[in-house]
């Protein structure tokens, strides 16, 4: 078993890892506990990774490049917006950045992996730092509990995936995607074993995506961890798992289409429905976003059920890109509100559009994008984009389920928007905070909103340029 290393494809991940180490070392030798000490090298490393990805663009392929771009930009957004936690004693900056970048490196490797061992290794490289990130806040019992749930669920799912991979290896005699693809069309391959193997392998990835029935850890982990970590988990981590899933089924397993196609369709339908129903009961903005991101995972998986059409591949990536921006904006705005007001419950945020339009309007716009409702045209257009391949493939029932879920989703998104626009009850409490770091975080929110606005006005920007 000899796996050659293709440096052009792992270069971004390596650069990110180097940045992680530098960040940790800087913090170790100049322990002043300020955010910039390790944040700056991290940011530089991410920019470097982005440059590397651009340089090797042709070797990566359009698809991997787009996913890498989402991962690198998403992490950069998280790093910059995390400045909001500056001077928060419970959060150690060096460790935070180290773990965050390690996870990002895992994500970057995951989307370029073309064999099963790399997939598992990068999956672990993404998972383990993520778990630590969730439990990183010192002295927070909730965070520790969330991290434990996350850890146990993660380990079980990885074990299941390993089982599936070993079965696949047993059947085909290889770990390389292309070899597996050729081996699976041989008539001598035992079909029942292949089905089981595919099923088990996919479970691990679906778990990372937070798809039903493996979604239970999601709300728990998001509400327990600090807000920007939740933002990271809901976008970058999801982008990586989705990319790996799509590549795996498309490159390695087209022969087992009959196994994974119905599986993914049912999982997608169940995920969006359960996620939306869960979100309906929330009265806290972060809890709502956590459940909504479960529902959004359903929309991401749905076009995978029609993957063999050409659009089946581009549609989820385009949806993912818009979802990532909107979700990051929402989480960043909420982290600012959490720092300023100490809570993100609906009661606390009531009337935000009136009292603080510079945070309230971006939050409302991001929510509209997630709901897919004009004036956030881009949200609606991407919903259209993910429906197209499904219908082209003839899975109309799934499209109708999506339609019903757009309605369900709107029920709670509108409730949140109404809360934001409502008349506030009295003067809100605003805690004293370091102005610079708040300003940096606010700037990221505004930049993200500007991106969403630009995409709404010219949907072409993103729809023609992503794969």
């Amino acid at each position, binding site marked *: 078993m000899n796996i050659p290393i293709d440096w052009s494809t792992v270069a971004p991940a390596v650069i990110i890892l180097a940045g992680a180490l530098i960040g940790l070392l800087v913090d170790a030798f100049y322990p002043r506990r300020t955010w910039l000490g390790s944040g700056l090298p991290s940011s530089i490393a991410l920019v470097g990774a982005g440059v590397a990805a651009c340089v090797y663009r042709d070797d990566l392929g359009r698809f991997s490049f787009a996913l890498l771009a989402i991962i690198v930009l998403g992490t950069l957004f998280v790093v910059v917006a995390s400045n909001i936690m500056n001077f928060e004693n419970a959060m150690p900056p060096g460790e935070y950045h180290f773990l965050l970048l390690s996870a990002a490196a895992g994500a970057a490797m995951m989307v370029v992996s073309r064999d099963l061992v790399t997939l598992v290794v990068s999956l672990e490289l993404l998972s383990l730092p993520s778990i630590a990130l969730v439990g990183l806040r010192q002295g927070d019992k909730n965070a520790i509990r969330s991290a434990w749930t996350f850890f146990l669920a993660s380990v079980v799912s990885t074990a299941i995936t390993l089982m599936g991979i070993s079965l696949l290896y047993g059947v085909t005699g290889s770990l390389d995607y292309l070899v597996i693809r050729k081996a699976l069309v041989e008539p001598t391959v035992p079909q029942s074993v292949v089905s089981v193997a595919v099923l088990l392998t996919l479970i691990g990835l679906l778990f990372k995506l937070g798809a039903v029935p493996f979604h239970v850890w999601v709300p728990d982990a998001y509400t327990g961890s600090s807000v920007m970590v939740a933002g990271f988990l809901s976008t970058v981590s999801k982008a990586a798992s989705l990319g790996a899933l799509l590549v795996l089924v498309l490159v390695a397993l087209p022969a087992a289409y009959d196994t994974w196609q119905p599986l993914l369709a049912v999982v997608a339908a169940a995920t969006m429905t359960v996620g939306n129903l869960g979100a309906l009961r929330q009265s806290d903005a972060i809890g709502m976003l956590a459940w909504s991101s479960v529902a959004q995972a359903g929309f991401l998986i749905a076009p995978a059920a029609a993957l063999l059409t050409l659009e089946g591949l581009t549609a989820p990536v385009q949806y993912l890109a818009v979802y990532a921006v909107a979700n990051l904006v929402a989480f960043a705005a909420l982290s600012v509100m959490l720092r300023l007001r100490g809570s993100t419950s609906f009661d606390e945020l009531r009337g935000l559009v009136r009292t603080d339009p510079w945070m309230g309007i971006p939050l409302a716009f991001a929510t509209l994008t997630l709901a897919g*409702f*004009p*004036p956030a*045209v881009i949200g*609606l*257009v991407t*919903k*259209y*984009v993910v*429906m*197209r391949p499904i*219908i*082209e493939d003839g899975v*109309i029932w799934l*499209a*109708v389920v*999506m*339609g*019903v879920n*757009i*309605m369900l989703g*709107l*029920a709670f998104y*509108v409730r949140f*928007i*109404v809360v934001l*626009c409502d008349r506030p009850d009295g003067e809100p409490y605003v805690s004293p905070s370091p102005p610079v770091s708040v300003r940096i975080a606010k700037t990221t929110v505004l930049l993200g909103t500007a991106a969403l606005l630009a995409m709404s006005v010219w*949907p*072409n920007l993103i*729809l*023609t340029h992503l794969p």
Partner: protein
Amino acid sequence: VIVAALVVPFVVGALLIALRAELSGRLAAGVGAAAMTVSLVLYALVWEGKEAVSGEIDQSWIEPFDARLHLGVTALSWPFLLMTALVGVLCCLWLVADDTAPVLVGLVLIISAASLGVFSSLDLLLFFVFFELALIPMWFVIAWFGGSSLAGQGREARVAATRFLLFTVAGSALLLVGIVIISIDGGSLQAGGAYTPSLAAAVLVCLGFAVKTPLVPLHTWLPDAHSKAPTVGSVLLAAVFLKLGTYGLLFFMPMLGRFSEVAPYLAVAGAVGIVWSGFACYAQDDLKRLIAYSSIGHMGFVVIALSTQTQVGVAAAVFGSIAHGLITGMLFFVAGSLKDRFGTTSMALIGRGLYGRTPWLAVAFVFAAVASLGLPGLAGFWGEVLSLRAIYEVGVLGKPVAWTALVLAVLGIALTTAYFVRAIRLLGQGEPVPQDADRDLVRREIVVLGLLAAGVLALGLVPGPLLDLYGPLLEVLGS
């Protein structure tokens, strides 16, 4: 030109909301009325004749699936556009009062502009974007400005608004699926180019618009939303929003290859709606709910007419829609006047003898009511007659369905007469019991109601120009 007609109300509406603190309600409403008038005039001037697509604009928008910014005025959409713009102007005029919130004017402008956008879109995705755009502002209109000042009413208004929103979004989500099917089968998103032989598309699109129109049994959002909304909200809902449903059906009909298989169900639902709403109206004490239910009946006539897919049917559907827009708009304005005076629209509480107490208000109400029940010489008459004529032609429906619908529709006409006469008797006639709040029409009410009455009368006496759009008059009535 069309772009200007759309952008002006949007921008003015957004500005009014942004500058809500600096403006008085009276000024805001005046500005709003001016903006809508600009739009109305532009739409009236853009017309180039019924064969052409007037003022067409066609620019690339989203290249990967060939969605275009494609706007234009056709013979089908022109009457709807003028009616919507007119209703928008009147709603703003109605709001020229001191206690108006500028935000409400802004929302009214945005809703009107979005509806105008729906009527002028020739691209299906653009149509859908505008279709959705009007919904959330409408939620705010109903929930924030609806209900009365009585305790507990605010919550009811919210519930009604949310139900309205969820029903319509469920419908439009199905419509979106239908649009995707059409675009994939037809390879185009442009009206005229797109066509699908799929039955699923026909069912989904019809279901989507059936919620909006609304057809029994998908109408349950309507009575609450209409009766809880503020006056302008009710008017916009009845005169404009319901038309989005009927216009949508007319607009998509040529693109759906198997519409004829869905048509009988539409026709039956419409006919059942006519009778059902008749009975429901007869039992109402609340005037606004009565008008709301009567809308379901009128929309039933429109849907039956268009489901025949004949030329007369299309003419009847358009005429019925426009007439309903003006008449029901007028009825809701009258109900609004009553509510302003008495704080309620319960006919029992308002008391009898309005002829003696507030003569002009009573006259306006009776005029609108008899127009609504289809008195010859007024606009409502032609819509109903042409509908019956269209059913008589059977069209794609098939004899049994058509005749059933015809019988139910005639029964419905009788019921309509009965419940409006009852309402007139309860409010207008009888021994006057004067109340403190008795006050005849003020100037803004005279202007609004007068313009609407003139419109109703004009359409009733000279239906020719409108009908000519869909084939020469003689051809429609003769043959």
